[in-house]
Every structure is written in C-alpha cells, then in structure tokens.
C-alpha cells in the first residue's frame, strides 16, 4: 500500500469526526436535542476511529516484525546448514553442531509466533473496518510512519476540557435540559464541578452570573431552595450534577494519563531510534569488518546479528506503541475513548 493510500485510510477515519466537530452549534432551544444527539454520535465515531487506528498500527508492526524474524530465520537456517556440513567434514563435533541447530529451532518458533500475531492483528483490523471475506484483501503499509520531530506540548487541561470534550458538552446540555424539564429556575448558588469531588460540594461565588449559552462550562447552577414543592426535582438535579462532576474529573485524569503515555512512548521510541538501533548497527558493521579480517568466525557474526536484529524488532514495537499512545491521546482530548 502506498503512502497516499495509507493517508486515505487515516482521512476516512477522521473526516466525519472533524466535519461533525466543526459543524455550527444549534442556536435555538429546538436544536439543543439535535446537538446532544450529534455529540453522542461523534463520540461513537471517534471511539471506532481510535480502535481502528490501534488495530492498524498493531497490524503494520506485526507485519514488519514478521519480516525481520523471517530474515533471522533465513540466517539461522544457513548457520544450521553450515554446522551440518562442518560435522559431516569432521571439523566439528555433535555438540558444536547441536548448538547451531538449537538457534535455528528457536528462530523458527519466533517466526511462527510473529506470523500468528500478524494474522490476528490483520483480522482485527478487517473486522473494525467492516471488510468481509469477499472484499479485496487488505494491503497494509510496509512500515509504520516515522516518529514526529518533536513532542507536542499538552495545553492547559481544563482549557481542553472546556473546548473539546464532547462527552462533557453533551452532559452539560443534558443538565441544562434537565433543569428546564424539572422547572428549576431559581439558582441559589453556582459551583465549578472541577473543584468538587464526587462526595463534597464547595460553595461557589454567587455574584457570578449564570452564563447562558451552549459553550461548555463547568460552572453549574445549584438549586437547593428546600421548598417541598421542588425537593424531589432538586435531588434528581443534584444527582446529575454529581455525575457531571465525576465525568469532568475523570476526563481530566484520562487526558493527563494519556499525555504521560504519549510522552513516555515518544521518549522510548526516540531513544530506540537514536541510540539503541544505531548502536546495534554499528556493532553489526564492526563485526562484519572483523569477519572480513578473519578476526571472528561466521558463526560469531551470525550469533551477534541475531542479537542486533532483535533490537530492530524492539524498535518497531516502540514506534507502534508511540502511535497507539498518540491515538489514545487524540481521542482523550475529544471525548471518553473507553467505549
């Protein structure tokens, strides 16, 4: 699959999400319900998009891994055959030969595991993309995208919550709708749900006006007149506020965790790319020189190559982990990514 085609997949997965997000918000009350439905739909699409991206990165990485392990197996096979000839010529004993044979058996096992992983991840991806058996075979990119040049900064989390989290927007609209439906009109005070734990309520500042509108706000009016007429409605409303507060605090925590994962995965992958893999390649290059100079045997070269190639396999997985973490973060910035 070409880079352009790979981009198309990404685009298909994100296009609808973006168009939904950028759609103008309804201006009047009749459209509030539509906005809630719209928000809920966007969250569902986003969750699917995230799951599909995860599956895609897993499938490409598994494909790359299998390719590397195929090479290791090819080399181990050559080593085992050479060992067999050494034994046949009388230059080696059965012990020397068996060691090489053991390496070959191990390489075969690892390749089988890698191929199994390759099939599993592809199938998962097909499933999420809704591809059925008759549809053309899924062709993946040969390798994962490069790491980005820089780590993106995490903007102010509360600002993100305020601007982006669709699930919170929906919940906020639901709270306003609930208040209207319950006929609660006289707010006694205002609280910011991000400042309240699920079990305690802090006194807000009464002087601040209750901003009407559809921008997400974590300031919610509190109705606790205590009047018998509305006591039941007020209790129901208070429960909704509690749930909203819990969601807002969870969302903040999710974003922080997702960012921590994104940052750590980037550091790990970058270190693999800039230190571990170059070191491994330098070792391989130096060993090749020593082999050419009759300073080490082809078996030494092979044993070391096996180790160095493993470091590339580790690198592939670190890049995969980074892109997965990036996708989780992107999703966490928009909504609750846990379906």
């Amino acid at each position, binding site marked *: 699959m070409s880079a352009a085609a790979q981009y198309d997949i990404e685009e298909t997965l994100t296009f609808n999400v973006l168009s939904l997000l950028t759609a103008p918000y309804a201006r009047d009350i009749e459209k509030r319900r539509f906005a809630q439905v719209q928000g809920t739909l966007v969250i569902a699409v986003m969750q699917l998009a995230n799951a599909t991206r995860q599956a895609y990165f897993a499938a490409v990485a598994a494909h790359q891994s299998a390719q590397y392990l195929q*090479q290791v197996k090819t080399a181990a096979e050559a*080593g085992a055959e*050479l060992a067999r000839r*050494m034994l046949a010529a009388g230059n080696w004993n059965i012990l020397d030969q068996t060691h090489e044979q053991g390496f070959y058996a191990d390489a075969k096992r690892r390749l089988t595991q890698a191929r199994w992983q390759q099939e599993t991840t592809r199938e998962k991806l097909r499933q999420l993309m809704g591809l059925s058996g008759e549809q053309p075979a899924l062709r993946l990119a040969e390798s994962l995208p490069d790491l980005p040049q820089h780590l993106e900064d995490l903007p102010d989390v509360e600002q993100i919550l305020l601007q982006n989290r669709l699930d919170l927007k929906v919940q906020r609209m639901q709270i306003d709708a609930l208040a209207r439906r319950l006929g609660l009109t006289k707010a006694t005070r205002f609280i910011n749900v991000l400042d309240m734990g699920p079990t305690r309520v802090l006194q807000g500042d009464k002087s601040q006006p209750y901003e009407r509108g559809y921008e997400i706000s974590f300031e919610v009016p509190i109705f606790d007149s205590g009047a018998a007429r509305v006591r039941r409605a007020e209790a129901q409303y208070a429960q909704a506020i509690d749930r909203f507060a819990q969601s807002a605090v969870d969302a903040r925590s999710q974003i922080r965790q997702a960012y921590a994962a994104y940052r750590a995965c980037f550091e790990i992958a970058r270190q693999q790319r800039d230190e571990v893999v170059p070191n491994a390649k330098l070792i391989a290059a130096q060993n090749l020189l*020593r082999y050419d*100079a009759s*300073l080490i045997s082809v078996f030494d070269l092979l044993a070391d190559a096996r180790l160095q190639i493993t470091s590339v396999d580790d690198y592939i997985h670190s890049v995969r982990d980074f892109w997965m973490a990036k996708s989780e973060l992107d999703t966490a910035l928009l909504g609750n990514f846990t379906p």
Partner: protein
Amino acid sequence: MFTRRSFFNGAGLAVAAATVGKRALAALPEIVSTDSASMQPPLVPPNGRPYHPVATLNGWSLPWRMRQGTKEFHLVAEPVVREIAPGMKANLWGYDGQSPGPTLEVVEGDRVRIFVTNRLPEHTSVHWPGQRLPNGMDGVSCLNQPSIKPGQTYVYDFTAQRAGTFMYHPHADETTQMAMGMMGSWVTHPRDPGQMRVDRDYVFLLNAYDISPGSFTPKVSTMLDFNLWTFNSSAYPGTDPMLARLGERVRIRVGNLTMTNHPIHLHGHEFVVADTDGGWTPPGSRWPEVTTDIAVGQMRAIEFTAAAPGDWAFHCHKSHHTMNAMSHTLPTTIGVESGDLTRKITSLVTEYMSMGGAGGAMDGAASGAMQMQMPLPENTLPMMTGSGPHGPIEMGGMFTVMKIRADLAHGDYRDPGWYQAPAGSVAYPWEGETPAVERG
C-alpha cells in the same frame, strides 16, 4: 628525521630543575629524538674511540655528547606514537620519541653517563642487563636505587667493561612498562675495531603487543595471548629489509624482550651464534645452524657470509608470529563448501545495516560510519599481507627479507627493490601432462 629540541623548551624543565638543581640542569645533554620508524643510517662516531657502527632495524642510534672524556646520553622516557607498519600506529611508551628507544653504542672501556628523564605518568628506572657495573647502577627500582618519579632526571654513570650486545629496560612496574614498549638495544664495541669485525652489523629487539583490532594502546594485562609480534616494534610489511653485498660478513644481533621464545630462521645460508648476552662464543664451540631459538630475555648474535644473491626470508619460525592480529578461535573450514551459506549470512548483516529501521531513513552518526565499508577495523593490519614480485607474500609480524646483491656498494643501506633472478633459476610450472592422482 632527528629533531633537536632545546631542553629549555621541554615540559619537564621545572620538575627536573627541582631534582638535579639549576647548575646540573645547565649541564644536561640536549634531547635528541626522532619521529621516524624507519632504519636510520649507521651513526659513524664523530669522536671517541673508533668503531664500526651498527644499523638498528627500524630504529636508530642515539648521538652522544663527549664531556671530559665521558660519553653522555640523554634518554627521555615518554609516551610516543609509533608506526607499527603503514596503516597502524600504536600508543606506546618509549625513549626519545620512539619505541623501542634508540640504540646506545659505546666502546669497551668507555666511561658512560646516561641521563634519564621521566616524562611518564608513573615512576620508572633503567636496568642494564649483562653490564658489569656498580650495584647501585643496576637500576632495580628500590633495590639498587630510589625509583625515578615523574618529572625527575636520574644519572647512571659507569664504565662499559665488556664488549657485546646488551639491552636496557625499566625495572619498575616492568610488566606494564615493557608491555608498553619500553626497551632499547645497547652495543659495546671491542676496543680493537679489527676484533670480530663484520661488514654489516644489524641489531634489533623482539617485541610482542596485544592491541585489540580498532584500538591503539596495548592491553598491558595480557601475559601470553599477544596478537602482534614485531622486530623492533615493526610488523611486516613495516619492517625494513636487511641488506648485504655478496660476500660480505654479516652479523644480526637479536634481543628477546617478549614473554616467549622465538626460533629465528634465515633462508639460504648457514650461520653461527657468535655472541650471546654473556659475550663472544669461543670459535670452537660454534656449530652451523639455520634456526636459533632465542629464549625470553636472551640475546643471540648470528654471523654468516652473504654467500648467495637473492631475497632471502628472515623470520621467526613460529608461523603465527609471522601473522598480524588474528583470531585464535576460528573453526576449521577445510573441506567444507561454505561460500553459498556465508554469503547468505553476510548479506543478511549487510542488508540489515542498510535498513532504515522501522519505516524511516536512518540518520545519525552510526550510518555514516557504516557507509564507509572499510575492509578492516580501523588501525588494524591485515592478518597476512605483503606483496612480492610473484604475488601476495601472505606474511606479517616477525618477518623481513635479507637482500643480498652483487652490485650493492659497501655501506649502502638503500632498498634495491626485488631480486631479479637469472633466467632459468626460478621454480616453474610443469607444462606437460600431469598423471592422474590415485587415491585408495
């Protein structure tokens, strides 16, 4: 080339002054050093008793200052960078810019004063094996004298009582210092220049180093498994040839300061051992040989008449001593068809090195080094090398060529090139039918 550095510009000045005093310092002989690893022309004595000078293989003789009838030499013990052969340099310790240090040449009965300045990072001393000298001049650190601390200069003062071939080396942390190449030759010529007179008189030391391929400094803790075997710290093809005119009498003095014995072998001639560490061998005790074993710490001087023109191999007879750095653990592949498989394995490694990691062009320092595709690790000599008139000689280490020519002038030490063998005197391929080999 020699460089004459004024001692007053020397780094050791301040500390040396503190040790020997200003007046004595002014009296120090100037330091003479060289950065060349090639054989310098013999040093014809400008003063003192006359003698026939030696030629030091891949080395040189130190000029002296004659002061009130005493020959004064100045040895500066210091770190040096020595070319082992073109393509390889070693970080060694030596004397006066080279390792081994310069050859000291004196005459039987000469009063000799050697100033030893220590520019090493640790204490040292100089021992003069085989010399008849006062016990306090024998140089065993802290047995015969205090050790020479970094920056200090010590004076050794004795009379060269016995003609012969000697060596000098530290007797302080000597395993390390000798593993780093601290040693030199000493020749005391007979008072009578006609005694034991030869036309060409060569001298050199045998040395062994363990320098890991790609590195520069010997591993000083190696005791047995050395990977570089050298004539005067030169490995073939870095060793100079030895020359003789047809019919000349030739002496080769070889001192062994390695940790093992070396059977030294000359092609095409018989020789006798005419001199040992203990002195001239009585003529009646000599027998003809073509190989003589030189034990650890021993010196043997062989003599022969250059009887046959040609390029005659001269080498240690331990075949692995005529090879440069090599593995001692390679499996035997004789009788195994392995080309197809080794190609498969090496191409995997090559391919792997050129791979762009996971989906990106590899950048960084490592990829640059990889693209160079050097045939050998840095600063490493091929295991077997040298090319002769008929192809690759496949030698290294303790190997050189004795070049005997009819048309070489007396005293000419310039390489005359390869021997032009007369027509019909070179082994040749059989052009007729070769009978089938029958094997049972």
